[in-house]
């Protein structure tokens, strides 16, 4: 399992990847963000969660630095964080119960990475 981001011809990286990148450039490769740490840009704890989602659900937008190129991602948080904290991705087999919500279970993956503070 990897946390796959796309690298584009213009040098930019996005997570998730898109068929066409910023400024219209094509993907030229991938980057596994799970091998990097990131900094918390902002966070929230949601107390009103939809079907199949843990409650409370702490979420963060984080920024990776991949050899000088910033890449942001979003995801669940394990434990407590503050803005500016360093976190690392930790693999989780099921982030949300497939089929409990409106989305067709077969239409997407349900595993992924939570962010955990680095001591």
């Amino acid at each position, binding site marked *: 399992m990897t946390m796959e981001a796309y690298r584009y011809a213009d040098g930019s990286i*996005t*997570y*998730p990847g898109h068929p066409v990148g910023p400024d219209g450039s094509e993907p030229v490769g991938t980057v596994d963000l799970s091998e990097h740490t990131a900094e918390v*840009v*902002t*966070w*929230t*704890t*949601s*107390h*009103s*969660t*939809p*079907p*199949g*989602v*843990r409650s409370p*659900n702490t*979420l*963060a*937008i984080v920024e990776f630095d991949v050899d000088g190129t910033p890449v*942001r*991602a*979003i*995801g*669940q948080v394990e434990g407590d964080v503050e*803005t500016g904290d360093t976190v690392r991705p930790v693999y989780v087999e099921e*982030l*949300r119960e497939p089929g409990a*919500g*409106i*989305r067709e279970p077969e*239409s*997407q*993956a*349900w*595993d*992924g990475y939570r962010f955990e503070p680095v001591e």
Partner: protein
Amino acid sequence: MTDVAVIGASMTQFGRREGEWILDLLAEAGEACLDDAGVAPDDVEHLYVSNMASGEFEGQTGVMNALAHDLGVIPAYSERVDQTSSSGGAGIYAAWQSVASGASDVTLLVGGEKMTHRSTAEATDVIASITHPVEYKHGLTLPSFAGLTARHYLERFDAPRESLAHVAVKNHENGTRNPHAQFRKEITLETALESPMVADPLRLYDFCPITDGSAALLFCPEDLAREYTDEYATVAGVAGATDTLVVHERADPTTMGGVVESGRQAYEMSGYGPEDVDVAELHDMFTILEFLQMEGLEFAEKGRAWEMAMDGETAMDGSLPVNTSGGLKSKGHPLGASGVAQGYEIYKQLIGDAGDRQVDADVGLACNVGGFGNCVITTVMEAAR
């Protein structure tokens, strides 16, 4: 292009409409709008129905055809407009296009949503289904995007938490003057600041409710408007724009690109700028959104909208009254109806028929936000000269 006039408007009571469903609500607003303008169903050439999710909420699809039949406007062209929570604004854009292009001489727009039969969790999930798979699997909801953005805004611009509560207090106060509003109850800053936490740092009173309701507008070429009425407004500028679906990919979490771009284009088309706007309806699905739109539409400098809110400049008697209707916060937010109801409020203000909410206005603006700024429509309207 033909100049386009708004010659009639209606809205149903917003709130919990027990036992009434999407087709009932749409028909109620549509019929009332035709009555308001004194236009016969036979005259309607185009019918647009703004609606986000009647299939998902109720299992009722094909609402445009059902409404055409119920209102007796057959054989008018009919189309459902879905742009998530900016469906209403997108309906204004579609209606304007139909008349401006010459394709239709009388266009009826009806927006509506039936939501309250679903639990909060279910309704939240229907709305969150707009998110990208990498967001959805983490349980991201629209309220959680608001919490993430609000924290970033408060920390970055050193804005006090109370500034957001001022938005809620103001819009609830305005809502007491709106007979169609879901909540007609004043609240205090303390009530807002001590209400249950929903998406830290945002609390219950930072969020709009789940709502049933419908609203409608009637459009025709301006040169035909006086055949129907002496009291009308015109669409001076209207534009729509998008931003990234994936919210965290935006360079600045406090800038909604769709607000900036649709506003820029609507201003340019109208010939008016932010300084000319006398009254504005902004999409306050969450209190923080009022700040982001005030800045994106250049009513406030970047990072300074919170000061205007705390200084009372956006109150009914302030320099720029914002959300005289009570906004989504107090009036309610039946998704597909909200953008149309914003148009209803601006129209009423411009023709001088806003009752206890009336302010002195010749130019009004409505900004309708879909998703978390994913799609945005900005409309500038002016009073008939």
